[in-house]
């Protein structure tokens, strides 16, 4: 996809609830594809989504969704945005089929079109025969699928998924994450998905936005988060291999440190040379070189660092 237009753009977005500052001058741009919104509970994720829907009025700043201003064109935004709320929202005595048809109509689709769309999205989310049963008897996984179906019923350009994997067992979570990935990649719908589980978003999202205490901690592409940290992990085998390797490397002017069963080697100055140096050093010492790999970070590491202190 070569689309450039930002799906969401905020400038100094602030929501002050009096005692609580939910969003603190948030300025960011979210593009197409799948964007993971990460933060602990109370970091301002849900408030942010509600502001984007035009449901909650910000106390300061402004925001645009799909090119529409949230303050003036809330209706136009909500017509083309799908929303999966975090909490339960399904009436128990209605079938998923009837429910999805009704909510598609509530998004402005005529009845016949709503029926077709409902049948289609229910098939996509994987609700088969059970779609005709009252939702009160659904498992958590089925309920989340029904919630996802209603968010997609009107073919939105953007879906906001608030903790879609909440309460799911590992198998159902994998299935839901697979669906999120399909929505973003195959359906061509922009996705903003929140989670407090970082590992999940690491897998499915193209971009990650990290919120902490209503402030933007970091926003970048997921692979940048996972980028090589500028160090190599090396594993060597042999008598007292680690210590001898460390000493030899230090003598060669390369700073290294033991980490678990591996050596972490700083390669900030010229990676190519260091690779050769490691190979040669190990060869000279008669050690078995088991592996050399880039040291990838995990999204969790962002929280371990002081705020704003990326790499």
């Amino acid at each position, binding site marked *: 996809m070569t689309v450039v237009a930002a799906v969401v753009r905020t400038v100094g977005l602030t929501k002050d609830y009096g005692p609580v500052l939910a969003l603190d001058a948030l300025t960011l741009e979210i593009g197409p594809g799948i964007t993971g919104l990460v933060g602990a509970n109370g970091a301002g994720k849900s408030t942010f989504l509600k502001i984007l829907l035009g449901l909650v009025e910000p106390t300061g700043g402004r925001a645009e969704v799909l090119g529409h201003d949230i303050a003036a064109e809330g209706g136009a935004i909500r017509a083309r945005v799908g929303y999966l709320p975090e909490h339960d929202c399904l009436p128990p005595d209605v079938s998923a089929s009837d429910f999805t048809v009704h909510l598609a109509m509530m998004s*402005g689709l005529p009845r016949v079109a709503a029926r077709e769309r409902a049948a*289609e999205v229910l098939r996509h989310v994987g609700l088969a025969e059970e779609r005709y049963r009252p939702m009160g008897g659904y498992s958590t996984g089925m309920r989340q699928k029904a919630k996802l179906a209603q968010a997609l019923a009107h073919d939105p350009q953007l879906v906001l998924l608030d903790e879609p994997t909440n309460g799911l067992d590992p198998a159902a979570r994998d299935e839901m994450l697979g669906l999120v990935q399909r929505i973003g990649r195959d359906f061509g719908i922009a996705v903003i998905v929140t989670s407090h589980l970082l590992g999940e978003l690491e897998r499915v999202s193209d971009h990650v936005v990290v919120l902490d205490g209503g402030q933007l901690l970091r926003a970048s592409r997921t692979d940048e988060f996972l980028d090589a940290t500028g160090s190599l992990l090396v594993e060597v085998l042999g008598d007292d291999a680690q210590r001898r390797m460390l000493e030899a490397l230090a003598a060669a002017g390369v700073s290294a440190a033991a980490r678990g069963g591996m050596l972490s080697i700083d390669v900030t100055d010229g990676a190519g040379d260091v690779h050769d140096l490691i190979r040669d050093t190990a060869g000279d010492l008669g050690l078995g070189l088991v592996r050399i790999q880039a040291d990838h970070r995990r999204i969790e590491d962002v929280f371990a660092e002081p705020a704003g202190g990326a790499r």
Partner: protein
Amino acid sequence: MTDPTSATPEGRSVIHDLGYRPYTGARLGEGSIARALAVTGFRNAFGLGRSGRSKVLPFVLLALNLFPAVIVGGVMVLIGLDELPISYAQYASTTQVILGIFVASQAPVLFSRDLRHGTISLYLARPLRASTYALARWAALLAATLVFLLLPIVLLYAVALLGELDVTEQTREAGVAVALAVLLALVLTGIAGLISSWSTRRGFAVVATIAVLLIGNGIVTAVQGISSEEGRSDVGEVAGLFSPYSLYRGLATAWADVDALTPPTSAGMEALYALVLVGLSAACLGGLVWRYRRVASA
């Protein structure tokens, strides 16, 4: 889709995956959406589009409500009276308990359910504004209540015409009764809707509405009875302002051929009765809109 098997992560058998097709058809505006919501709400109030069990109560009540009118019809046909044994405007007072139970039991269907199950957040995330949502729900309950109130009038009117009673007189009386029924429906819808919108528990809403409508009426009737006995009908007149049913009775006595204990006696009092009825309805509707605006921004 490049890989059709990716659609079936657990390897479940799927005949053919068409892939995702975007929707390119019409998208209707807020007016059409509100109309669709009101129609669905109207059907839901009678249990249509819901489980089989939920149809029982509204239709039993509707049948009970029509029963006297059917009896009157039979009597008219068999005996051939020269006037209806029960006047159009009197009918709603006679069946007020059934009417009260209907409104009290079905208002939560329209107003409490979405709040209780959190479905309201899905409506609010759609183009409909919170105030339009409230208006559409209110219109649905109003229409259902009107069906309840107007069907007997229509039935009696048909019977009267079949019994060859004076058409002009019957039309005039039925017309007044329809106007009164609309006023009553407005106030009942407003009160029951407002109570239900503040309660996520259906049972609580039902009990509270019945208490306000029927017990309130009972208290007012008692006060009116005592004041009439004591020769202080002016007290009863004022007391009549405090319950929807007594307001209805008062106006029905003034405008149509209905007997009440302490009806409004002056034109000013009549106007006050009408004003309170309309004002109360408007206030309740305003309260409903306000309530859902608050829910939206919560």
